[in-house]
């Protein structure tokens, strides 16, 4: 560990808290690491340092900043820019920050669609006056109530600031977080712009890889959903027809999902050299299917191949036709 304490800032932008909990899950080891770290900012979860305190810190006075979550609000954008100014190194931490994440699937729908579902179509909704929440509302003629508006779509962190490093995972496994912290403490970081990763695909670390069993790889003759059949626990899921994105996904997790017989859905982010995860996933899967008709059997392909990365893809978002 370094002699000088490393100054660390952790910001939660549009996140679910899972990335913060991944740090908490380091558990008692965290207590051992803490003496090497000076957590100058960890909002809003743990430390009580204020936004304005971070804003008041001298530029470049923080060694490393982790940002989890995506950008949905002006505040997410503003605070990410503050982090960029204050931190020498900024890490897009977790699938949402790095790629937009699961909430990014909202980009397939307009705000109007989402309002219609939430305030009109849902079964238990009681809306006798057919109203929707208003940015500005005067209640009973005297209570002046406002609601902020948010951006119409989700963006990953690098759409608003320069990002030095990316960490995949939804959330990253706590061992990955610990390894990243140790690498940062030791100054053992890859070139800027890289993912902090072991560079291996999920397949490389998956015990089911046919390479380990000397099995011959065959073209996939049927597409199966996880509810179909009972997968052979020692055999590659893809070879059995389950749509596993292990070949395209970084395997820092150690193949957690395939170990419990569930195909990888790509939360780890793209293997090195891949720009658009979904496109590469589509081409990788297409190349191992036995015939074109099988493509029709994949339900909701965009919500499979782009489940974690739609906002960072070339597809972007749904725009309303004029």
């Amino acid at each position, binding site marked *: 560990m370094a002699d000088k304490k490393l100054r660390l800032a952790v910001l939660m932008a549009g996140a*679910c808290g*899972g990335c913060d909990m991944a740090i908490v899950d380091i558990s008692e080891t965290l207590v051992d690491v803490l003496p090497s770290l000076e957590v100058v900012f960890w909002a809003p979860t743990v430390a009580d340092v204020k936004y304005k305190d971070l804003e008041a810190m001298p530029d470049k006075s923080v060694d490393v900043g982790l940002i989890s979550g995506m950008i*949905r609000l002006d505040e997410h954008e503003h605070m990410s820019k503050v982090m960029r100014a204050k931190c020498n190194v900024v890490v897009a931490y977790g699938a949402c920050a790095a790629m937009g994440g699961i909430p990014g699937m909202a980009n397939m729908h307009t705000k109007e669609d989402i309002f219609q579902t939430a305030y009109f179509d*849902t079964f238990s909704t009681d809306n006798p006056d057919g109203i929707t929440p208003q940015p500005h509302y005067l209640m009973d003629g005297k209570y002046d109530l406002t609601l902020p508006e948010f951006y119409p779509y989700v963006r990953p962190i690098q759409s608003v600031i320069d990002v030095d490093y990316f960490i995949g995972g939804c959330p990253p496994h706590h061992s990955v977080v610990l390894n990243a912290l140790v690498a940062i403490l030791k100054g053992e970081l890859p070139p800027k712009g890289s993912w902090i990763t072991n560079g291996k695909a999920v397949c490389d670390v998956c015990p089911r890889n046919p390479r380990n069993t000397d099995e011959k790889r065959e073209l996939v003759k049927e597409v199966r959903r996880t509810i179909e059949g009972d997968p052979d626990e020692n055999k590659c899921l893809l070879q059995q027809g389950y749509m596993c994105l292990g070949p395209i996904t970084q395997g820092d997790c150690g193949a957690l999902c395939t170990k419990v017989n569930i195909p990888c859905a790509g939360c780890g982010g793209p293997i090195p050299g891949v720009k658009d995860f979904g496109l590469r996933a589509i081409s990788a899967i297409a190349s191992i299917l036995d015939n074109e008709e099988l493509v029709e059997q994949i339900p909701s392909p965009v919500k499979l191949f782009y489940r974690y990365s739609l906002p960072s893809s070339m597809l972007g978002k749904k725009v309303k036709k004029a």
Partner: protein
Amino acid sequence: MALTKIEINPMTRLEGHGKISIFLDEKGNVDNAFFQVVELRGYERFVQGMPIEEVPRTVSTICGVCRAVHFTASMKASDGVYNVEPTPTARKIRELFFNAHYVEDHAAILYALGFPDFVVGPTANPAERNLIGLVNAVGAETGKLVLKKRYAAVKILEMLGGKPIHPVAALPGGWSKRVTQEERKEIMALAEEMVELGQLTLKIFEDVVLKNPEYVKLVTGDVYKVVTNYLGSVDENDKVAFYDGTQKFVDTNGKEIARFKGKEYLNYISERVLPWSYLKMPYLKQKGWKGVVDGPDTSLYSVGPLPRLNVASGMPTPLAQQAYEKMFDVFGHKPVHNIMGYHWARAIELLCAAENIREIAKDESLCNPDVRSKLGPASEGVGIVEAPRGTLIHHYITDEKGIVEKANLIVATTHNKGPINIAVKRAAQNFIKNGVVNEGLLNMVELAYRPYDLCLACATHALPGHDPLQIDIYDCDGKLYKTLKNF
């Protein structure tokens, strides 16, 4: 009438922020208060078109703190969609898994949110009133011990669920992973750690809170008291049930008013759309919409640890039952309307979940191979669990192939929206008199909603945790007069 408006802004998070707007009358007393929430992430919309079996790992990301609850509720809904019961073994694994989440979550919430208020002190410097301050107060060794014992639960979540946060092993009518005898034995050992954590947690609560008359006043007094109906789940013996049970409503006197299961929730619960908040406000249908008021006639109800204990006639495990009896002895009545009781109930439930795990792990049949059910045509399903924060409802309609066409989710913090609004208003009325805004207001208002463990991540997708607040005070001309901030 010109009203002065005070805004308390919990910090903005995903898709907006919750904020509290307080209006003073001409005398400077509180006329009204609104707890507003800004959230619309659209999960109910964007799960449409997904195969139902992919929904659990997807909706899990509604919240990373409630890491296993949306997953479990939607998995149970997927059983309903295919009209299957989980196999006996899958059911045991799910229960084990879900109880492990309880231990982990309740521990995180108590040690990060509940205890700092008491151990570090409710009026202490907010910069120290957090997990780190708590560790400083109790010492690194105790801090480490608690983290280590909590980790036992995280380990089980990973072992059974694939990922420790946002798990993946759900299958309609089953579970994707079989448990080995070695794993079962490991879980048995981990269960002992967790039972110890439960006992330690209750002991800390008793030592720190119950032996301090000031705190006892805070816990049993009238400032933090909201009188509502209660909703929780019970088993066939009317004991608190986490993973599965019958949902039971009691009124403000503790008298049972309704029971329901599955889709019947629609007969009892309506969610009112409000023009001033993105979060809908649920109420008890039978009593009709009566607005944001508490008391014997209210149609609002609360959910979570305290309501669960209020609704049931006891705990299903021996050690937790003892603690349950002690709690109601101290309060001397049932139901308990004092919201600080939420923390106590949370500690009792932590112990109960650990005891549940110990019981399930003893059963060798946990390792049986039957973890998958044969599925029929798909249609519609409702999954209800008691999340740590309260009753959670997931409802899906699919086509015959199990592709989601419609979804409806009612999360715990949503049920509590009305009661939280009242708790905040009451605290404001207590601490703002004649236009004097006490600096302590910030924390007192925080204290008013912290017991509910606002999972705005679920309801509004802000993180439950320390909620930074901003109070803006305007004079009668609408000019900014003063700002109090804790972030």
